[in-house]
């Protein structure tokens, strides 16, 4: 009995600890919002109204929540890839370019397969998108592994190259045949309906539906009807779980992480550092590529360019990095982090619409949130270290030497 209540107590304790770990982030978010309120007042906008708008836009209605999730999908895909890359010791800043490569690969496949049934085109396009993004990421990975070209340089450069390739293809070989002529907007033809990722609506289980009905809710017992939420969301979540298993429950994942932790030790252990770096970049690029192809298949149904990366990607390539790091470089953790980001971005747009606040304010506040939250993690680290120390000294035999006092005086 005592062991049971003891283990229950410790599970509760660890849950409590996890929640307390979130406190610094919450405070950081609060601080950023305070500064946002100050800026808003300086612009003659009512901060309360602004934040209400922000929240309404993110989670206020069923449609808003759907849009938040829709926004989070590409961020999550990229974040999953970043987890692999960063854990594998490669700093992949090329999410934007890889997303574009994936979109190009996927949309080409969808257009070529346009007469085939959905059961063929959808997986086919997704695979092509993954491969295209993977090859593009693998290019940077190969350059690093075999030619010592730093991946930060190559991925930043390759982002721009991808945009130009997209411009070229969309203006030429992939151009919608009905567009050829004077107006000449660079976009592909629309994919066939069979190739679309279906809209997603979640039917509530009987129990919950009945409970809600007894509370007076009427209507269909399903969420997200008539919204833009699509199956890409489910695919992303499944991928997060798959990659989690890959990284922590398979040999390949172990090797990727080993190379990321300690290159030299891995080499001595017989792990091919070069091959695993290349693999990490390939997989990361593939995930970002999926972000691109899922956007096309699930939302836009064609690929169109305005000459920049962000017009299509909405900076998911960068937001994905932030989400991955907020999620602790763990694909499962990236899920709430991406949803949070999605909500922030969607809510901010609504704030802009409702109050006429310039979009640039939102970008600046976004930056502040990132900076504050990432700075606040030091408190989590300190606390965890103290807890670890307490745990070690209380439950095990006394150590031969006490923990260094220097830990308490930080540099």
């Amino acid at each position, binding site marked *: 009995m005592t062991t049971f209540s003891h283990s229950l107590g410790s599970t509760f304790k660890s849950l409590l600890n996890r929640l307390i770990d979130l406190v610094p982030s919450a405070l950081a978010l609060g601080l950023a919002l305070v500064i946002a309120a100050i800026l808003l007042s300086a612009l003659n906008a009512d901060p309360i109204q602004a934040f209400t708008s922000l929240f309404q836009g993110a989670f206020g209605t069923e*449609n808003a929540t759907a*849009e938040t999730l829709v*926004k989070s999908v590409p961020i999550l895909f990229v974040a999953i890839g970043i987890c692999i890359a960063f854990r594998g010791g490669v700093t992949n800043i090329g999410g934007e370019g890889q997303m574009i490569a994936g979109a190009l690969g996927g949309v080409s496949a969808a257009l070529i397969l346009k007469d085939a049934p959905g059961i063929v085109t959808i997986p086919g396009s997704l695979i092509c998108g993954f491969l295209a993004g993977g090859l593009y990421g693998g290019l940077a990975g190969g350059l690093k592994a075999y030619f010592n070209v730093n991946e930060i340089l190559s991925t930043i450069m390759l982002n721009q190259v991808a*945009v*130009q390739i997209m*411009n070229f293809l969309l*203006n030429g070989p992939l151009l919608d045949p009905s567009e050829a002529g*004077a*107006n*000449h*907007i*660079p*976009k592909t033809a*629309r994919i066939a309906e069979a190739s679309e990722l279906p809209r997603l609506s979640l039917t509530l289980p009987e129990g919950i539906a009945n409970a809600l009905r007894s509370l007076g809710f009427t209507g269909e017992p399903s969420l997200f009807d008539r919204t*833009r939420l699509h199956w890409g969301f489910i695919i992303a979540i499944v991928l997060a779980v798959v990659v989690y298993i890959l990284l922590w429950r398979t040999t390949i994942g172990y090797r990727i992480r080993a190379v990321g932790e300690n290159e030299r030790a891995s080499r001595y252990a017989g792990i091919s550092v070069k091959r695993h770096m290349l693999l990490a970049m390939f997989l990361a690029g593939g995930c970002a590529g999926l972000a691109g192809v899922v*956007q096309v298949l699930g*939302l*836009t*149904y*064609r690929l*169109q*360019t*305005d*000459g*920049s990366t*962000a*017009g*299509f990607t*909405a*900076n998911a390539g960068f937001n994905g990095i932030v989400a991955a790091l907020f999620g602790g470089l763990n694909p499962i953790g990236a899920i709430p982090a991406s949803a949070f980001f999605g909500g922030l971005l*969607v809510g901010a*747009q*609504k704030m*802009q*619409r409702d109050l*006429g606040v*310039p*979009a*640039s304010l939102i970008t600046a506040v976004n930056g502040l949130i990132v900076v504050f939250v990432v700075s606040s993690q030091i408190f989590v680290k300190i606390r965890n270290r103290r807890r670890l120390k307490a745990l070690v000294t209380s439950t095990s035999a006394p150590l031969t030497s006490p923990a260094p006092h220097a830990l308490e005086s930080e540099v």
Partner: protein
Amino acid sequence: MSKKVQFVLLVVLVMLSAVTIVHAQDKPFKVAAVAPSAKNDLAFSQSMFDALTAIQNELGEDKFQFDFQEGTFVVDDAAVALRDWASSGEYDLLIAHGSQYGAIIEELAPEFPDVSFAWGTDVNTFGLPNVFAYTAAANEGGFVNGALAALMTKTGVIGVIGPIEVGDAKMYVDGFVAGAKAAKPDVTVNVTYIQSFSDVPLATEAAKAHIANKADVLTGTAQMVVGPIAVAQENNALWFGTQSSQADLAAGSGVLFQVYKWEVVLRDVIAKIQSGTLGGEAYTLTLANGGLVMEKGAH
């Protein structure tokens, strides 16, 4: 019914309908627009913002109101905005000001048949009864600018700095080149497309390259032109512009500007909506219909 009752009924009906008509006219006409760049970009987005402001000045704030979401270069964000506006039921007209938004309108308009949509620059209404399309025959003003430029150049070399070869940018440049050649067949017109609507440093260097190659007249389109305009001023070259009037910025170098007057389209669209037609027409701004106006610079 006795004649007296009929008469009273008639009077009541007339009064009721008068009240309804007056009430309908009391509700302001609400427009919401989404645009890809800043409303003060001296180019594409500003042209629509200026037009909406002009209509508001004409009709008065109590009769015409508009919301404007600028800087929406992320196409999907425009989709969210348009959907949000459409489902609120508060707007009579939604404008998607950017050719990259076309796919959104195509998907969204059928879902909201009671709302009127307008998008540009294009002529495609997708066969939908609640979609208007609008574009500008930028080649017309381009032709005028080109001809004048060819006549004014002393070195015989003209430089063009374009963004991407699409839409009204392409039309303007093609018209400009045609006009220049028509006025002076042996004039040299060199065109650089910098593959971006917003890269000012690249646009500036492109302009400097033209100047170094003896161009003494420059022109270009899209919001990155602020760079080339400064180059023109520094080198005492002439500047011809389009989309909005850049006369203030160009100061002594600015010769002629093709200004988009979207209000010409908007007036007709508003009238059509108020009389029950929600779409189905494509408009083109031309010099003839007053949609394109050539405005002089300070030169």
